[in-house]
């Protein structure tokens, strides 16, 4: 069965020194899926990973593995393996012995260990480096040794704790593809932790967005990007303009002083909502054809497109366009119904999605053009 749950977390709470790190968290992880915990630092994603690895016990709640409760089972008896943030390779052992570590502990015969280690090193493209000592390896090579060491044990679940954070951009992109490939080849569950939304969207089958020790949204990368459940998710994944709106009736919403057709329904009459419009979904048109009008307050050229900030009634919108505009131009905005996404009000409402303090904070990793593919 493809959809059998391999790991289940039930009502898990964890506190450190009186501070809540995980707040009543529940999640089912399916066998053979690539699932990513995504969130800012301190959101509880690494804590969740450590619960599954067995380095940490929950205060309340259960960790379930293949249907059996594994609370209290020590890490060395769990059928999961971890790739640590800074790899945690043993400095006193060479490449071969690092990969062989788990097999030696299991007391496998030497010829089997040799076969297995050779196979693993081949899988991660490190054949020939067996005798090298760890500190002579580059960051990327160390990363590969860490992968080989973890999967040599044939775990049913591989836990990856921000494994690519220490690599440079180019290498990171290569490793993303390679990890995905290895996951498909091995056919096991990968649980990946990152704060990098692009990484999460490109690699995962499902993404778990976390903040404040709670799951904000679980879904496919497309769901998460196109249908964010609240202002936090909308803002964390890509760029968003988030404005207050009123749902006048099904498929009809009012915001920024104008009324729009949209594709959302199921809200109460005149319910206050958050409206998300992605910067790339807004078209700039002549003022007379615009649904909204505003004044350009800043323009930056990013190569693929321009990023311009438009002031509409005091609220600053970010718009991405390939046409050039100039500061103080008066422009009209046109928004298609399918570009409008309506969210219920949440504790995050009003915190995100306004670009009034925007100062050209260019972040390659959060470039939604790339993500949208």
């Amino acid at each position, binding site marked *: 069965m493809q959809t059998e749950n391999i790991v289940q977390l039930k009502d898990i709470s964890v506190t450190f020194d009186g501070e809540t790190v995980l707040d009543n968290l529940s999640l089912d992880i399916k066998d053979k899926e690539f699932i990513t915990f995504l969130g800012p630092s301190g959101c509880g994603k690494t804590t969740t990973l450590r619960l599954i690895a067995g380095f940490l016990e929950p205060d309340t709640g259960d960790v379930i593995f293949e249907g059996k409760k594994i609370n209290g089972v020590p890490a060395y008896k769990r059928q999961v393996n971890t790739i640590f943030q800074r790899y945690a390779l043993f400095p006193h052992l060479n490449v071969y012995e690092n990969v062989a570590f788990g097999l030696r*502990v299991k007391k496998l015969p030497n010829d089997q260990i040799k076969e297995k280690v050779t196979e693993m090193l081949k899988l991660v493209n490190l054949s020939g480096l067996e005798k090298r000592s760890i500190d002579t390896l580059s960051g990327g090579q160390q990363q590969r040794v860490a992968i080989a060491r973890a999967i040599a044990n044939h775990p049913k679940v591989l836990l990856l704790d921000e494994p690519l954070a220490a690599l440079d951009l180019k290498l990171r992109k290569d490793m993303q593809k390679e990890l995905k490939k290895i996951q498909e080849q091995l056919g096991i569950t990968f649980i990946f932790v990152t704060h990098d939304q692009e990484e999460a969207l490109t690699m995962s089958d499902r993404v778990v967005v976390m903040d404040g020790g709670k799951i904000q949204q679980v879904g496919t990368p497309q769901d998460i990007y196109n249908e964010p459940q609240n202002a936090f998710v909308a803002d964390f994944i890509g760029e968003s303009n988030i404005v207050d709106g009123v749902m006048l009736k099904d498929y009809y919403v009012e915001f920024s002083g104008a009324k729009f057709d949209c594709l959302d329904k199921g809200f109460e009459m005149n319910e206050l909502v958050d409206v998300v419009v992605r910067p790339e979904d807004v078209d700039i048109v002549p003022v007379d054809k615009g649904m909204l009008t505003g004044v350009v307050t800043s323009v930056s050229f990013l190569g693929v497109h321009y990023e311009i900030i438009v002031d509409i009634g005091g609220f600053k919108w970010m718009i991405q366009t390939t046409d050039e505009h100039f500061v103080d131009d008066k422009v009209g905005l046109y928004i298609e119904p399918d570009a409008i996404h309506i969210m219920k009000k949440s504790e995050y409402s009003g915190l995100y999605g306004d670009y009034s303090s925007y100062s050209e904070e260019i972040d390659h990793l959060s470039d939604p053009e790339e993500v949208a593919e």
Partner: protein
Amino acid sequence: MNKKSFGNKLVACPYIVWSAIFIIVPLVIMAYFALTDANGVFTLANLASLGRYKKAFAISIVYAVISTVITLLLAYPMAYFMTKLKISSQKMIMMIVMLPMWMNFLIRTYSWISILANTGIINTVLGKLGIGPLKLINTPGAVILGMVYDFIPYMILPIYSVMSKIDNSLLEASDDLGANAFNKFKRVIFPLSRPGVISGITMVFVPSVSTFYISQKLGGNKTMLIGDTIEYFYNSGPDYYNIASAISLILMVLIMLSLFVMNRFTNDESGGVVI
């Protein structure tokens, strides 16, 4: 490689001159004394006569080895258990361990006489229980006890400091890869703590093999160690400086040899640590 420099290399000159005069030259003079007689005439008689002190050398080495082994056996678990405590407790215990090192070791050694003497504390307590008196003082055991006691902080310190620097993620990695507590110790903790063990061994062995106070106070002058022999000739006046030099020279060679052997143990992997 681009080497860093924050000043002129000439500022090292005073030290280089100093170390030449006060480190190298004294050893040269010592060798000169060892190879001449009282009149400054070259002779091998001093070295040839060393056969007479075979026993002192042998006992010194045996005592030093025994006390180093005991010290290691006592200190290693101590250092290991310390790393399991809260950081604040670790710091406090470190202080407590180091505190006696700053007290005069002569007095600390001497206090053992109060404890071990025939009418001392242990025998008084035993006497009240109707046992004894036991002969504790002026025995080889008392000398070894003195060595272990005086030098155990030098074993605890380097082992602890190496062990406490072991990255916790390495221990988690070994758990993660299926190692139980025994395997974790055997395959990760012990190999990684080895540099600390090596420097602890040298820091205990060298003063043990060359001590001349502990044996006099706790051994009752019955056991002459190398250190005692050197001190004896030193006190016998300038006529005996040649033989004292010869013994010191051999002692130094012995120590350098054992350090060399110990260093071979560290250098094959992971690099040595000097503390």
